[in-house]
């Protein structure tokens, strides 16, 4: 790797961002899903006029309020970090990243100050239907708010709809719709929001299960479980579908991440899917700790090829195919990409030098060359590779990506079964007798959070070493400040967020114990 920035600075900056993002994501998915569950409950109240539905709605609304209040604005810290710790990255992507984030900020502000206020303050102040509308708009608004963040993240995973301006050193948006409807962005939004629906359904079922075990609030618990089971089952099946789509998009756009997800080192036709695998502690390559062999694996033949390309015999490239290249299947070697990246950087350097020297004629012709379609597609596309010397530095942490993916998928399928059983038991009137299931439902709440976090680890660790896929490596995006100052803020955040989390859990547990107001 080119000596670009202090590795400890890069690692602390990454750790700090990961810590902030992961804590932020502890609060978000519950909001995304529980708002819809509350909206369904309130709809039943408005339709039937039964006070018990109002009581149920208000109880879950209280828990949503606690989660929302503690989590609100935790995402703003990420924006602080963009400006302080990731200034090169922020400048490089500014216009494209800024537009969706600005829309999100405006949407979130209006949603939060208007609809949520009506939800909480408006019970006896506005009509039933107006209140219900506010609840639905809160749910829809929260999920639309997530869209813009995920559009920005999707662009980082697959940069589209822009052109690099060498004068400003920024990527500038050429087509907003390409950015908005990028397959990666759409997949990410659908998958992330549906994962929030599943997590919230499990939360509702788990808390209700606790009431049943305590022999309290049985009516509330059973009705809540019924709603959450139906919503959760539909959402979990949809989650599997969106995950399947997202995986295919990754196989196409981020083949290295896909290879890491499956621990696939050597590509093949009719590749098998490793359903369960354990990595050995010994390394396959002594020069790269990211490459480890399986000590045990259970493989489903041909399934990976089908999952990636909907063809049982398709060729799926492994890590080595992507590093060494595979002419037969059209995969360019990393060395070739590095050469093209270096050429793109050297052209940009020539442009910079010509501009500095006041040689406008040369700068003009280089500008034309840099922004030409041919250069953008064949050289600038590999710009980020120019920062590397050793192709193996392009390999992400395979074991971490593999384990995170398999934990997420394994738990995802377990949740489908959980919803099937909860729906079956509640419809058969057997739920109160199934104490083992009620306990499992409670344990599933932290498991849902684990699956949700694991999903983000797959998305973000799996795409390393990139901060913008193929264009900007993480080391180039980081601000050159002292690693010590980043360490300080890392620990500050660790303390702040942990205090917030403890506060949320304390208030949340107490409100659950109090139960709904009579």
């Amino acid at each position: 790797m080119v000596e670009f920035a202090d590795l400890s600075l890069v690692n602390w900056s990454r750790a700090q961002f990961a810590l902030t993002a992961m804590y932020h994501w502890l609060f978000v998915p519950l909001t995304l899903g529980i708002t819809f569950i509350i909206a369904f409950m309130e709809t039943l109240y408005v339709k039937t006029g039964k006070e018990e539905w109002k009581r149920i709605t208000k109880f879950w609304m209280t828990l949503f309020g606690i989660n929302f209040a503690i989590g609100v604005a935790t995402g703003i810290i990420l924006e602080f970090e963009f400006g302080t710790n990731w200034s090169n990255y922020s400048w490089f992507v500014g216009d494209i990243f800024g537009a969706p984030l600005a829309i999100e900020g405006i949407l979130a502000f209006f949603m939060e100050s208007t609809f949520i206020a009506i939800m909480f303050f408006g019970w006896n102040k506005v009509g039933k239907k107006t209140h219900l509308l506010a609840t639905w708009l809160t749910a829809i608004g929260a999920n639309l708010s997530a869209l813009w963040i995920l559009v920005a993240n999707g662009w980082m995973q697959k940069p589209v709809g822009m052109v690099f301006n060498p004068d400003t050193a920024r990527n500038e948006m050429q087509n907003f719709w390409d950015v908005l409807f990028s397959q990666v962005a759409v997949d990410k939004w659908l998958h992330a929001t549906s994962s929030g629906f599943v997590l919230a359904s499990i939360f509702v079922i788990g808390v209700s299960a606790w009431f049943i075990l305590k022999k309290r609030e049985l009516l509330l618990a059973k009705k809540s479980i019924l709603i959450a089971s139906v919503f959760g089952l539909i959402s979990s099946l949809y989650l599997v579908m969106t995950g399947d789509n997202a995986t295919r998009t990754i196989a196409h756009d981020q083949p290295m991440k896909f290879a890491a997800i499956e621990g696939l080192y050597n590509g093949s036709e009719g590749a098998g899917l490793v359903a369960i695998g354990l990595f050995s502690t010994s390394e396959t390559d002594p020069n790269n700790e990211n490459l480890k062999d399986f000590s045990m694996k259970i493989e489903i033949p041909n399934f990976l090829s089908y999952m990636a390309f909907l063809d049982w015999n398709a060729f799926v490239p492994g890590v080595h195919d992507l590093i060494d290249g595979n002419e037969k299947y059209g995969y360019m070697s990393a060395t070739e990409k590095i050469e093209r990246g270096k050429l793109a950087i050297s052209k940009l350097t020539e442009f910079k030098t010509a501009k500095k020297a006041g040689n406008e004629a040369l700068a003009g012709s280089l500008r034309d060359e840099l922004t030409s379609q041919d250069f953008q597609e064949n050289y600038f596309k590999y710009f980020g590779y120019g920062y590397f010397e050793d192709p193996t530095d392009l390999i992400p942490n395979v074991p971490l990506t593999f384990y995170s993916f398999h934990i997420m998928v394994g738990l995802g399928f377990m949740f489908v079964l959980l919803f099937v059983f909860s729906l079956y038991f509640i419809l058969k009137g057997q739920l109160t007798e199934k104490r083992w299931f009620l306990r499992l439902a409670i344990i599933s709440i932290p498991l849902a959070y684990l699956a949700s976090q694991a999903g983000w680890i797959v998305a973000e660790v799996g795409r390393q070493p990139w901060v913008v896929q193929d264009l900007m490596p993480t080391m180039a995006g980081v601000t050159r400040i002292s690693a010590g100052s980043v360490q300080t803020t890392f620990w500050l955040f660790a303390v702040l967020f942990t205090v917030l989390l403890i506060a949320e859990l304390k208030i949340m547990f107490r409100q659950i114990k109090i139960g709904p107001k009579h």
Partner: protein
Amino acid sequence: MTNKTPNIIRQVWSFYVNGFRNMGTWGKQVWLIILIKLFIMFAILKVFFFPDFLKTNFETDQERSDYVLEILTEPKE
């Protein structure tokens, strides 16, 4: 029209004021947490720990562009 506007503003104002006034214990607690959190974030973290690097160190967009261009094209320190 001129009479209606202040009424709407007053109604919205009293809607929020009454809402906050009649909040339950948990509501007051979470609002306290929100205010402390926002104070820590904007009055301490943002001011003392998170200056915008490019805005603080450079005056114009051109200077910022030049700096980032320099960074992008000079990988070796």
